[in-house]
C-alpha cells in the first residue's frame, strides 16, 4: 500500500529540507561576473574539510505561531557523504544521511525510519546538493540548484534556488553564509513564507 510511502516521503521531505538547512549548500551558477573565481575558491576551501562537528541553534518562524520555535543540538559531517543532525532540545531526534540511506530516529511517532534516497528523487536531489556543497562538488550542485554568490572571501553568502519544480514546491530558497571554509548560518525559506534560521556555533575544529 502506498500510504506508508506517502507518509515517509512527506516526512523525509521535511527532514531533508531541515537538513539542507544545516550543512551548507553551494552552487556554481554564478550570478555576478567576478565572483566566479571566488565561488571556486570557496568550494575548494570546503573540499579541504574532511570532518567537522558543531553545536547549532535553530529558530523557526511559522505564520501560525505568534512566537518562534527554538531547537538546538549537534551537527556532524564526515567526508564525503555522512551527515548527522542530532537535536537535543526540546525533544531528542536524530537524523542521519549516510551514502544512499536516510534514517530518522526518535521522530514524532517514536519510530525509526530508514529509506533509500534513490527511491525519492526530490529528497535525493536535496541531500546530494548538501553533500556536494560540503564536499565542494560544484558540478553536482549546479545540477540541482541555481546558485548565486554574494560577497566574496572571506565572508560569503550562497543563494540556492531549486531547479526541480517538485523541490520548488517545498523550498523557495536556501541561503548559506559562511566565512572561509566554515558555515555560519543556514536560512531556509519555505514556499509559503515560513522560514527557519540555523546558526552554527563556533566549536572545536
Amino acid at each position: 500500500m502506498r500510504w506508508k510511502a506517502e507518509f515517509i516521503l512527506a516526512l523525509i521531505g521535511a527532514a531533508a529540507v531541515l537538513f539542507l538547512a544545516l550543512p551548507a549548500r553551494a552552487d556554481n551558477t554564478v550570478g555576478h561576473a567576478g565572483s566566479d573565481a571566488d565561488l571556486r575558491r570557496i568550494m575548494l576551501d570546503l573540499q579541504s574539510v574532511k570532518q567537522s562537528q558543531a553545536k547549532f541553534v535553530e529558530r523557526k518562524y511559522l505564520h501560525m505561531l505568534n512566537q518562534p520555535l527554538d531547537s538546538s543540538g549537534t551537527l556532524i559531517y564526515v567526508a564525503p557523504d555522512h551527515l548527522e543532525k542530532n537535536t537535543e532540545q526540546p525533544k531528542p531526534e536524530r537524523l542521519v544521511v549516510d551514502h544512499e540511506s536516510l534514517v530518522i530516529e526518535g521522530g514524532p511517532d517514536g519510530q525509526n525510519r530508514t529509506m533509500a534516497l534513490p527511491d525519492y528523487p526530490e529528497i535525493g536531489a536535496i541531500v546530494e546538493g548538501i553533500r556536494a556543497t560540503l564536499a565542494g562538488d560544484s558540478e553536482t550542485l549546479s545540477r540541482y540548484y541555481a546558485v548565486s554568490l554574494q560577497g566574496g572571501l572571506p565572508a560569503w553568502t550562497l543563494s540556492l534556488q531549486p531547479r526541480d519544480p517538485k523541490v520548488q514546491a517545498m523550498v523557495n530558497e536556501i541561503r548559506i553564509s559562511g566565512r572561509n571554509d566554515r558555515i555560519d548560518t543556514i536560512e531556509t525559506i519555505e514556499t509559503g513564507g515560513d522560514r527557519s534560521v540555523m546558526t552554527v556555533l563556533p566549536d572545536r575544529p
Partner: protein
Amino acid sequence: MSRKNLFRIGVWLAGVVVCIAIVAESRFSADLSTFLPRSPSAAQEILVQQLRDGVVSRLILVAIEDAPPSVLAPLSKSVAAQLRAAPDFVSVNNGDDQGLAKDRDFLWRNRYLLSPDVAPGHFAPDALRRALDNDLQMLGSAAGGLIKATLPADPTGEMLHVIGQFQGEERPAARDGVWFSPDGSRALLVIQTSAPGFDADAQQHDLLLIDNALQSAKQATPGSQDARLLASGPGVFSVRIRDQVKQDAFRLSILATLAVAGLLLLVYRSPVMLGLALLPVATGALVGIAAVSLGFGSVHGITLGFGVTLIGEAVDYAIYLFTQTAPGSPPEETLPRIWPTLRLGVLTSVCGFSAMLLSSFRGLAQLGLFSIVGLIVAVSVTRWVLPALLRKDFATLRSTLFGPVIMRLATRARALRYPLLVLVLAAASLLAFRHGDLWDDELSSLSPVSRHDQQLDQELRRDLGAPDVRYMAVVNAPDEQQALASSEALGALIERMVGEGVLAGFDSPSRYLPSAAAQRARQAAIPEEASLRANLLQALAGSPFRAGTFEPFLADAAAAKTQPLLDRDSLNGTNLAAKLDGLLIRRGEDWAALLPLRGVADADRLKAEIAASGQGGILLLDLKGDSDRLYQTYRRQAFLLALLGALAIAVLLFLSFRSPRRVFAVIGPLAASVIVTVALLTAAGDKLSIFNLVGLLLVVGVGSNYALFFERRDSGGELGALQHRERIIISLALANLCTVIGFGVLTFSRIPVLHGIGMTVAIGAILSLVFSAILSAPEDGASRAGF
C-alpha cells in the same frame, strides 16, 4: 447384409446422431476451478471463490525490462497513464503519485468518520490541549513540514491516524518515482482488472491493452527498442492455460491420432480398415463427451484432451479383433473366441475408472465418466457393429516378418522371471525407503500453470515485496452491517495481538467502510460547534498558536457531525473501493468479511485468542495450509478409491476365473508394472500427484488386457492354438505400440495433468506388456515350436 446387422448399424447410427446433437449443445469450459475440489465447508468455499474471482485473482503483475532504469521509468509512467484512462482497469499502481489523489481526498474528507480515535472525550479541552502540545512538538521536529499544511484543519491528527492504520504494508523499491525490482532491472506495475481472473476472454483483452500501451510508450521513448513486457497473475494464467489446453489437448490429441492412424495404415495397408479401426474410438469419444455434458452440465477442455486416453485403450479392441482373425476366416468366428477376454478387460478397466468417478474432484470425476462410457461404447461397437461392417474376406494382417521375432522374444521372456522378481523387489524397497516423500502434497502441483510461469510469478512477487497472504480471518454474518461491525470487534482483538508481536499487521474492510453504528458513534463524539469552539479556546489558552488558526478545523468537524453516513458507493472512483470489494463479500444471503493477516508469528495463539473472545462465526484460514490439506484429503481419498478399484478388479477376476493361480497370472504383471513405474517416476526425481494416480489406473486398465490375453489358453488343435497365439501376441504388440504413441505424445505437454498421465501410462504400458510376457505360464506347444 443380414437383418440383424442392419438393425445394429441402425441403432449405432441413431445413437451417433443423438450424441452429436447433445455435443453440439454442450458448453465447453477451460475454467480451472473445475479441477479444484468441490468445497464442503464454508471456509473452503471462500477459499476456492477467492482463488476464482477474488480481488487477488484480478491482479496482473507487470514488469518492463531490457532497458536502462532511466528508460524504464518513463515507460512505466506512460503505460500507467494510458491504462488509468481505460475502464477495463480498476487500478494501476506503479509507484508514482497519480491515481492516489482520489484516495487521499476521500480519506481526508471523511477523516472524522474513518478515524478509530474519534471517541467521546476526544475533543474535550484537555484532550485538545494535549493534541496541540503534540502539534507544537511536531512543528519543531523534522516532520514539521508534513503537518504544517493540514494542521489548521486537523489539529488532532485524524488523517495521520487513518493513514497510520495502513502502515506497515510492504512496498517495492522505487527509482525515479516508480516501482523497480531491487536490482533496478525491471520496472514494476500492479494492475487490477475489472474482469475476474477466470474470465480468460476479458483477461486476454486486458493483456492486449497493456501490451498496446507499452508499444505506444516505446514509440515516444528513445532507447526503448528492446524493452519488453512480462506479465503474471491469475488472469494471465487463465489466458495461458486456455491457450495451452487448446494447443496441447487438441494438437496433441490430433498428433497422437495421426501417429496411431499412420501406424495402423502401415500395418493394414487399407484406408477402409483404418477407418473401421478408429470407428470404436470415435464413437466412444463422442458418447463419452455427450455423457459428461449430460452429467456435469459442461465439458472441460482437459477432459476433451483425454480423447487421447481412449485412443490409447479403445483402439486396441479393433486391433485385437482384426489381428486375431486369421486371413479368410470371418470375424464372427474370432469374436466368440476373444469376446470373453475383451469383456473382462473392459470390466477391469471400468473397475479402475470407477475410482475416479467417485472422486470429489469434479475434473477427475469427469475424466472417469468419460473413460467408462467411452470404453464400454467402444467395446460394444467392436463387438456388435464392426463385424456387421466388415466384408467377409477383409484384409487382415498377413503373416509378417516380425511375427516370428516377436514370438521368439515372447517365449524367451520367461527366462527373465527371476531378474524381474529382483527388479520388483528393488523398486518396492526404493518406494518403501522414499515412503514419506513420495507425494507432492501441495495444491500447486495440480496447477496447470507451467513451472516456468510459476517461477516468474514468484520472482515478480518477490520484486514487489508482496508475498502471498497466507493467513486470513473470515467473519461470517447475515448482513453487510453485521459483517462490518464484527470485523471492527475482531480488528480490535487483532490490534492487541499486533501489539504483543503475535503478528505484524492486518487489513480489515471496516478501515475502508466503518459500520454505520461506528460512524454514528463517531459523529456523536464530535461536540456541537459552539461547545467545540469553547473547548478549543480553553485548550488554546497560553499556547503560541495564533488566534483563528483552527477555524478550518471547527468547520470540518461541524460538517462531519451532520454529513451523510458513508456506504459502499461513497468509495466509488477510489482504489479503496476495489480493496473493500475484495474484503467484504456477498455470498448468497450471507456476507463475509475478510481480514488478511500479515507476518503471523504464532497462529496457534491467534486461534486460541479468537476462540476465547467468544465472537462467533470467525474462521482463521491458512490459505496455503488449508488448501494443501484440502488437496491431501482428496489425494488420499483418490488413493483409497484406487485401492478399492484394485480390490474390485481382483474380485472380478476371481469371480471369472475361480482360480487363484489364474488371478495371479493377471494381477502379478499389473502389480509389478505399477510398482516399477512408480519407482521409475520417483527415481527420475518427480513427486507423485493425483494425476500420476490416474495414470496408474489407466495402466491397470490397458495392462489388464495384455495380461488377460497372455493368460488365455485356447483349446483345439495344437497348430491352431499356436497360430492363434502368434496372432494374439502380435496384436498385443501392435496395441501396445498404439498406446505408447498415444500417451508418449502427451508427455510433451506443458500441462502437468497431461504430462503426468502421459508419462505414467507410456512407461506403465510397455512394462505391463513385457511383464505379462515374462510372467506368462509356460507354453507347452510354443516353447517347443520356438526352437
